[in-house]
C-alpha cells in the first residue's frame, strides 16, 4: 500500500536576489514497511524535500510552487495548518541530524518524550510515562526508568540519539523521516543506530525515509534508493539494481569516489568540478558540466525521467535523439 506519494514537487524560495528553485520535478513514493533512501550531496535538495513533506518550509519565504504530496491518499497541500499539526509527530515524524539540538537541555528527557504524547492524544500522565519507558526499552536503552529522569547532558551521543528516535516513535507514526540521523555519531555507535532503524521499521511495519550522503548506509539499510543531484531526482530504483548497474553517470561516479574497505578494487576516482549551487544550476541536464558523456545536446535539452530496465533515470544517453545528436 502506498503510504506517501510525492508527485512533480517543485519548491521555490524567495531570496533577496530573486526567486530560486531548490527542488524541481521531484517524484517518488514509499510503501508501508519500506525503507527508502534519499541520497545526494550538499545542496541536492534532500532536506528541503523532508521539510516540504512535513509542511515545515520556512514561512513566507518558501513554498511548494507545483506538484502534490499524498499521505494515505490525503492531499497534504490542501489541508489546514491545524490539520497538519495533528499529522506531524502523530502520523509522520521527523528525526533530525544533531541529537544535541533536538533535545531541550533544561528538561528531563522523559518529560520531553511525554510532552509529544500528551499533545497528540488524551492520555493520563502515568500511562504516558509507561508508554515512553516501553518505547525507550524497545530501542535498547538500558535502565529506561532511570534514564527517563535524566537530563540530556548526562547521556552519551548514542543514547541521546536513541531518545530522539523514541520521541519520534512514541506516538506510533506510520512514516518516519530521518535526516542524516547518524552524522554526529561515532562509527561504532552509528552501526548500532542503523541496525535499530532497520529492526524498528520492520517490527512496526512503518515507512522510513532515510536521508543521507552515505552510500554505505543506503546499501546496508534501504530497499529502494532515490539519487538526487542539484534539486533533481537523477536515478531511482531498487538498491541492488542501482548499485550493481548504475544508469546515471552521476550515480556511477559517486559509487567510484568512495574507498571500499576490504574490496579487491582499491582505485578511487574523483568527479571533476564542484556541486552547483541553487543560483548557478546549469542549463539542460544539470550534471552535464561534470559528465564524461556529455554532448552539446545535453547542454541544450533538459532530460526527462525514463524507465530503463528496473530503474528510473533522468539521462539523455538512453534516448534515440541523444545517440544521433552530435
Amino acid at each position: 500500500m502506498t503510504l506517501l506519494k510525492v508527485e512533480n514537487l517543485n519548491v521555490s524560495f524567495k531570496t533577496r536576489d530573486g526567486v530560486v528553485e531548490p527542488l524541481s520535478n521531484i517524484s517518488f513514493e514509499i510503501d508501508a514497511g519500506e525503507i527508502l533512501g534519499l541520497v545526494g550531496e550538499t545542496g541536492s535538495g534532500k532536506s528541503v524535500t523532508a521539510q516540504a513533506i512535513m509542511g515545515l518550509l520556512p514561512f513566507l519565504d518558501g513554498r511548494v510552487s507545483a506538484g502534490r504530496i499524498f499521505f494515505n491518499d490525503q492531499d497534504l497541500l490542501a489541508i489546514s495548518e491545524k490539520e497538519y499539526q495533528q499529522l506531524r509527530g502523530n502520523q509522520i515524524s521527523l528525526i533530525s541530524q544533531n541529537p544535541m539540538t533536538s533535545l531541550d537541555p533544561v528538561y528531563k528527557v522523559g518529560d520531553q518524550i511525554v510532552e509529544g504524547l500528551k499533545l497528540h492524544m488524551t492520555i493520563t500522565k502515568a500511562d504516558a510515562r509507561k508508554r515512553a519507558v516501553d518505547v525507550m526499552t524497545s530501542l535498547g536503552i538500558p535502565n529506561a526508568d532511570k534514564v527517563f529522569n535524566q537530563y540530556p547532558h548526562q547521556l552519551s551521543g548514542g543514547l541521546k540519539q536513541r531518545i530522539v528516535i523514541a520521541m519520534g516513535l512514541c506516538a506510533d507514526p506510520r512514516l518516519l523521516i530521518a535526516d542524516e540521523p547518524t552524522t554526529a555519531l561515532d562509527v561504532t555507535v552509528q552501526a548500532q543506530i542503523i541496525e535499530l532503524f532497520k529492526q524498528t521499521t520492520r517490527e512496526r511495519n512503518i515507512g522510513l525515509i532515510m536521508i543521507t550522503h552515505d552510500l554505505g548506509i543506503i546499501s546496508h539499510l534501504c530497499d529502494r534508493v532515490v539519487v538526487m543531484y542539484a534539486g533533481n531526482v537523477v536515478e531511482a530504483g531498487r538498491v541492488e539494481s542501482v548499485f550493481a548497474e548504475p544508469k546515471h553517470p552521476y550515480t556511477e561516479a559517486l559509487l567510484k569516489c568512495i574507498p571500499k574497505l576490504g574490496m579487491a578494487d582499491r582505485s578511487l576516482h574523483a568527479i571533476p568540478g564542484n556541486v552547483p549551487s541553487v543560483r548557478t544550476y546549469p542549463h539542460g541536464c544539470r550534471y552535464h558540466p561534470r559528465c564524461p558523456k556529455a554532448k552539446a545536446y545535453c547542454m541544450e535539452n533538459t532530460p526527462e525521467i525514463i524507465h530503463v530496465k528496473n530503474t528510473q533515470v533522468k539521462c539523455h544517453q538512453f534516448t534515440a535523439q541523444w545517440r544521433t545528436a552530435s
Partner: protein
Amino acid sequence: MPSIHRPVENSVMTPLVEIRHLSKFFPVTGGLMHRKTGEVKAVNEVSFDIFRGESLGVVGESGCGKSTLARLILSLIPPTSGTITFDGQNINGIGKKQLRHLRRKMQMVFQDPHSSLDPRNSIYRSLEEVFKIQKVPLPQEKINDKISELLGMVGLKPEHCRSYPHQLSGGQKQRAVIARALALTPEFIILDEPTAALDVSVQAQIILLLQELGDQFNMTYLFISHDLALVDYFCQRIIVMYLGKIVEITPANLSQKQPRHPYTKVLMESVFIADPLAKTQAPQIKGEVPSLFNIPEGCAFENRCVYSKDICRKKSPELLEAQPGEFVACHFPLTYEGKHSL
C-alpha cells in the same frame, strides 16, 4: 593498482619523527577554588615512528586522542611527559626561534577549510603571509611567482589568488589551505580530517591531489581520520587508538582476516560498504565508551569487548610486536590461519 601507491618495501625505512612514551594529561578543575579534581588522559604513553616518505594513518573515534597527538607533534601544546624527535632533533622545550624555523619543515591541514582561512584576507594574502612570517628572503616578484606556482600545483587558477574565502567552494578552500601548507616545501604534513567537511565527490578530488603531491615531493604524511576506509586507502600503515592509547599498529590494505585487536575488528565491521552484495555482520560490541575522566583500570576496551576475561580487568596490556611491523596491545589477540598468536 595505480602508481600513486608508493610501495613500502622500496622506500628506505628511516624514521623522520620518533615518538617515545608521549603523554598529555589535561587537568580538570572544579569547585570554588578551581582545584585540580582529576585529569583527562588524552594521550597516554604513546610510542611510534613515522618513516620518511610514508603515509601513516591514525584512526579512532572521538575522544581517542588523535587530534591532541597531532598538536603535540607540532609543538602546539607541550607534552606532560615523553619525547618527540624530528629529523634527529629533540623538539621538546626548544626556543621559540628554533621552533619557528622547524615549522617550515612541518605543516598541518585542518578539518574545516572555512575556519582555517582568514575571511578578510584574499587567498594571495593568506599565502603571502607565510613568507612574511617566516621572513623568507625573497623579492616580492619571486614570491608572486611562487604563489602562482603553488596555486597551479593544487589545481587552482592564478586568478583565484584575488578571491576571498567566501567566494570559493569548500573544495577550492581546502586546495588553498593545502597550497599554504606546501608554500615552504615542508617534509612533513599532518592532515587532521582534511576531507571531513567536504562532499564525497570533492573528498576524492582532495585525496587524489594529496597522493599526487605526496609522490611528487616524497612527502611524509600523518593522516588523522575517523574514517577507516579512507585511512586504509590513503596510508601504508595504520595506528588504531582507543581512549588515548595505541591498541594496534598494522599495515594498511586491511582484509577481514587481518585485525588482531578486537577493537580494530569492530571498527572494520562498523564500516558500511557501498555494495549490497558485501557481506555484513553486525559488529560485536557492547556497552558505551567510558568517560575519559574515568578510564577503567586494566584494558580500556574491556567493558565493550566480547572476548574479555579476568586478566583484562586487572592488567593493562602492553603494545607488543606480534609479527614484524605489526603491533597489538591485547591479552588475547585475534588469530587467523597462518598467523601466530603472541
